[in-house]
């Protein structure tokens, strides 16, 4: 996307006259700002959806209002906006004994990790901030930077609950990153590329003329890899049933117990950004990204957006469904699941995909 803007600048005389550094910064801003807006709007919509979906699952109404004024709008549509406003206006509290520098820095590191990962997310055939040749690797690598922020938040708060949350989170995210990376490796083996667009393009066409040629349907091993990756992804986003780092009934609020106002909102933003990333990468790697489910039909760029967001929304819905159905696992059970079942299974998967590729294809 940056290069795309730079090409445009080169053709406009007064822009081309500017120093190349300025041009680059301008192009980067034009790419980055919409992404930032997207992260914020994504959180707004996701929070509203989460509230309404959880309400429907729990036999409640969720946020409701009668109209404009001091109400939360029709069907509570303005509820998240009102909440955002409240969070901005709230007093910013930093505990007296906290490590100030780390305390202030932590939410930004977590947010940046989530935000940067979206740069490599292809929304359709053309909209993609940065088409790296290492796209998948980049997202996985950047995703683990968030752990540092979580540890910083937990340590600097000078609160025992936060420390427990941070410790749990570090252990959890690292344990689940390995099966996640190994299961996405199966897709990379079949594609031979780490580039997101290449992975999606490799999924065009059909299998036996009926099923779309998505990697989830490609062979039994990738089918399993889809579930392994998605569940590991849910574990990485710290959501129920893997929400041990936050665990409101145990650790009060885990690593962000001491945060309030806008600082807390950054944790919130990045949680929903992470949810989007995990769903997005699952959709790209296993569900054909922006590919139409009926091969050859409705596959223009606009439809590409519709399919991509449709698939991502479905996966986000599944994650919310998890959250409002399951109890929480215990730390040792979580570790056991990660290291004893997911890791061997994903290793076997790699072997299986290799053999399948050798024998069948």
């Amino acid at each position, binding site marked *: 996307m940056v290069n795309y803007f730079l090409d445009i600048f080169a053709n406009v005389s007064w822009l081309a006259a500017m120093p190349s550094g300025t041009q680059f910064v301008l192009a980067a801003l034009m790419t980055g700002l919409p992404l930032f807006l997207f992260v914020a709007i994504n959180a707004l919509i996701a929070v509203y959806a989460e509230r309404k979906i959880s309400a429907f699952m729990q036999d409640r109404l969720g946020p409701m209002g009668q109209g404009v004024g001091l109400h939360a709008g029709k069907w509570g549509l303005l509820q998240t906006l009102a909440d955002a406003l409240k969070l901005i206006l709230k007093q910013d509290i930093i505990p007296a004994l906290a490590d100030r520098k780390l305390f202030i820095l932590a939410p930004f590191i977590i947010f940046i990790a989530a935000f940067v990962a979206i740069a490599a997310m292809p929304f359709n055939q053309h909209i993609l901030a940065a088409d790296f040749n290492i796209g998948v690797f980049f997202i996985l690598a950047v995703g683990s930077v968030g752990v540092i922020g979580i540890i910083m938040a937990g340590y600097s708060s000078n609160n025992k609950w936060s420390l427990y949350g941070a410790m749990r989170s570090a252990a959890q995210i690292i344990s689940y990153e390995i099966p996640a990376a190994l299961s996405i490796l199966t897709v990379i083996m079949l594609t031979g590329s780490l580039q997101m667009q290449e992975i999606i393009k490799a999924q065009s066409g059909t299998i036996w003329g009926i099923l779309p040629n998505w990697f989830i349907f490609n062979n039994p091993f990738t089918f399993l890899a889809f579930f392994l990756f998605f569940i590991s992804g849910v574990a990485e986003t710290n959501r129920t049933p893997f929400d041990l780092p936050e665990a409101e009934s145990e650790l009060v609020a885990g690593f962000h117990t001491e945060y309030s106002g806008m600082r807390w909102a950054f944790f919130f933003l990045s949680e929903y950004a992470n949810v989007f990333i995990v769903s997005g990468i699952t959709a790209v790697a296993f569900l054909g990204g922006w590919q139409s489910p009926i091969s050859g039909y409705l596959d223009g760029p606009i439809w590409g957006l519709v399919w991509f967001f449709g698939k991502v929304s479905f996966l986000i819905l599944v994650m919310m469904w998890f959250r409002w159905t399951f109890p*929480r*696992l*215990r730390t040792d059970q979580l570790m056991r699941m990660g290291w004893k079942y997911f890791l061997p299974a994903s290793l076997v998967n790699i072997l299986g995909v290799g053999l399948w590729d050798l024998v069948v294809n």
Partner: protein
Amino acid sequence: MTDTLDLELGSVQAEEMVLNMGPQHPSTHGVLRLKVRTDGEIVTHITPYIGYLHRCFEKHCENVTYEQVIPYTDRCDYIASMNNNFGYAVAVEQLMDIKVPEKVEHIRVIVAELNRIASHLLAVGTFGLDVGAFTPFLYCFRDRERILDLFEMLCGARLLYSYIWIGGLSHDLPVGWVEKTYEFLDYFEPQVEEYNNLLTFNKIFIERTADVGVLPREVAISYGVTGPNLRGSGVKWDLRKDDPYSIYDRFEFDIPIGTGVMGTVGDCWDRYYIRIREIEESAKIVRQALEQLPRDGDVHEALPKKIRPPKGHIYSRTETPRGDLGYYIISDGKPIPYRLKMRSPAFTALSCINEISHGWMISDVFAILGSLDIVLGEIDR
């Protein structure tokens, strides 16, 4: 207590950490403070500190008349006020040798069992909340709400009823209440299946609760644990059957006991499942009592004009949703009790927390605490 780990890099000191759980904490079920010593995430010792909700219940009782004690009993176990009223009324009636009319007895059993269902629903729901499942909690509240509506219709209150009086009841049944209760039972009985599907037999829930916090039979008896917690340990002890008061001997119902289907007898899952089973049994009792309920009669018939028990003392116990609730009353012939002592089942249940939770993880402490179903109002009094 420090352990020294000798590593090649030198020696690392490992220290135990003291965690203060509460009195402000989302899952301590009130204002309980637990001082937890932990080794990593493993709990080595728990000391419960109580008294944050102490309101001098027993001392107050020495200064008010016998009728005026009833609202105080409401505020002890505020989740099951009907049962607390019931226990107190039975104690004073025994002391004064009052025979209450049939209709009153039936209504008392109906409201006490409905209240038991409501209380167990809360216990089940909050236990789900303690292990991280939010939805069952709201399902339980949705159904509990209907019981509260019935009680509101009955006496105007939704939590602190003061409905059962010495020798009678505060109000007669309003028109249409019996039909509404039938309606509720028809709606409610199939709902238990939903809780089972959503929570009881959920794999993660079983992982979290089976084999966790095992309260062995002997330990339970030696600590004086009663109610569902004792029955979860496999002891068939229920005052409604073993020492029947009121008219409980007329009804057909089972006493569910823990069998250790999912793990060990007396684990958190057993204690939880006892409550689900008791909900079903209580619904059965309510149905029978409604069928036998005499339609006419005055609930104020046996109300004594003056409550002035003869000199003497009485210890009377009833089965509340939390266990044996005992009232020990000494009367010196005056209209105010000379001394009133309450034996709180939740207090004894809490006392065994260190015994059953050391060696488990922090997450399990909440599961164990939730499975004991304590109410701080009754512990602190």
